[in-house]
């Protein structure tokens, strides 16, 4: 375990698929408690980067320390210290809310008593007691997303990866979701999030914009808007991507 004061410390990270450089010499650091936004066009390399940081994919070269552990050597330790919410809803639809929580509690090695208290805690927190024994498939999308987030938090990870967490969710539920994220950040948890909703990108403390495997901008949303003289992140994004194109 190495301690650099950063939750995520990436230097010159590169990943090739055959001759294609999906991620090209990327460097950045994320502080504890930070909400770090990860933007980019389709195929810009966001998902590949996240998968490397989660230990799902080995880098071709470069350095990456996640929650104090090396992505080359300590993938098992990383997995114990991060939470991950995939782009596609990946809880079991044919299990009830309670069963999903119990299952993931078990997977993360909580004992029976811990699982019981955690389940109660989460059901309280999500206000899902009424629906605890209903099949997950029957819940509205907004609740499913919150449930997915909570199960990703079961083992109390320091760092949480969210891959397009609010796609298709109604505006109100999206705000509820972001309130949860702010609370987590205040508790000192680091949030790493990707999104295509540019208004949502502004919720982040800092943003990075990727294009063709490289990080081309990395700053606070406000500073980016000033730098590109734009009113919205949408405009910033368009300008950043077009600038690189030209």
């Amino acid at each position, binding site marked *: 375990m190495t301690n650099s004061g950063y939750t995520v410390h990436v230097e010159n990270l590169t990943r090739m698929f055959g001759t294609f450089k999906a991620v090209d010499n990327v460097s950045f650091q994320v502080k504890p408690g930070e909400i770090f936004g990860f933007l980019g066009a389709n195929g810009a390399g966001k998902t590949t980067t996240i998968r490397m940081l989660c230990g799902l994919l080995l880098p071709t070269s470069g350095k990456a320390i996640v929650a104090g552990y090396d992505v080359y050597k300590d993938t098992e330790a990383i*997995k114990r210290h991060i939470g991950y919410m995939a782009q596609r809803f990946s*809880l*079991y639809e044919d299990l009830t809310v309670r069963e999903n929580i119990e299952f993931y509690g078990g997977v993360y090695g909580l004992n029976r008593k811990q699982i019981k208290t955690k389940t109660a805690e989460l059901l309280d927190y999500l206000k899902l007691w009424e629906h605890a024994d209903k099949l997950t498939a029957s819940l509205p999308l907004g609740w499913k997303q919150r449930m997915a987030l909570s199960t990703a938090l079961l083992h109390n990870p320091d760092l949480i990866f969210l891959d397009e967490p609010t796609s298709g969710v109604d505006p109100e539920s999206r705000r509820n979701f972001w309130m949860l994220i702010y609370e987590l950040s205040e508790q000192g948890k680091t949030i790493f999030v990707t999104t295509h909703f540019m208004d949502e990108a502004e919720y982040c403390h800092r943003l990075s914009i990727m294009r063709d495997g490289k990080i081309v901008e990395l700053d606070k949303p406000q500073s980016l808007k000033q730098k590109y003289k734009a009113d919205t992140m949408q405009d910033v994004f368009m300008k950043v991507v077009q600038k690189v194109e030209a």
Partner: protein
Amino acid sequence: MNQILLSIIKKEFWHILRDPQTLVIILLMPILMLFLFGYAITLEMKDITTVIIDHSKTPHSRQFIEKIRSTDFFNITGFNIPESQIEDIFFRRQARCVLVIPSDFASDLQTEMRTKIQLIIDASDPNAANFINNYFAQLSMRYNNENNPRLAMPFSVEPRIFYNPDLKSDYFFVPGLIAVLILLISALLTSIAIVREKEIGTMEQILVSPVHPVQIIIGKVIPYTILGFIDSILILLVGHFWFGVPVIGSIVFLLFALVIYILTGLSFGLMISTITDSQQMAMMAALLSTILPTIMLSGFIFPIKSMPLIFQYVSKIVPATHFLEIIRGIMLKGNTLLDLKVQLGYLFGLAGLLILVSVRKFSTKLE
């Protein structure tokens, strides 16, 4: 027991119970297939429609006809039709053979070494025709021996048939079907298990958690072993009580052998599921790679000894070959563990090897 493993097992059971339609199919399909195959595949023939033309019309010829009538092999459907209609009768499938007793039947029987009668058989199904011919030849020889005073037999062969004295083909086929069905079901169950999670995206979430492949794989094998075991018991019950196949050896030993065999099937399915990417592919692979070799190469229908040499070697690899020896051995011969240790050992080793390969093949990375 390991907490993570326990969670996976529990979850797998939830999946099984949440989907009652699939569960019913899993439990009923083998029994349905057993009935279908049990009745469709049979080497015994019965009720062969027969027309007799008696030109002799003597007490002897009537006695001979009575002999034929008393078997349930022949079913006499017509008498003394004009000989010009014989072909017509075959053509319209009204009879499968026609027996013509010549007018000098009675006198030949008393005076000649040979008594001629004519049997005309519809050979559009050559196997059946052959069977009819043999059966009739036996029947007429016995009649000849009893009634022709000029024949004195120098010796006679009296066969004694062990383990299946009535030569019932059910005894032969039911254990074989059990072997096919159990392997098929268990390979199917697990082949889908992992691929399904890859397809719906839940595998990604599992992979980012600190779960070891061994835990995932064992966690999937155990629930399905139990399901496969219940299935096997159902099949055995139907085989025993409906088709009347005996269990001469130890039932406990039989159940033990079944568990080993189920494990072989499950681990085979697992291996398929670690190397395929879609449920469809996994299912096709499981079906083809279990049904074909089990039916063709295990000695289930075609005797191994009459196969080309290369196939004889291949049949040694097919798990069903060994299981057939085990199950026939226990059910029909009353073999014990010691008699079948080689076959059991092979199945056990194969299951272990396949699980090992699955764990190695199972990637915790997304590539």
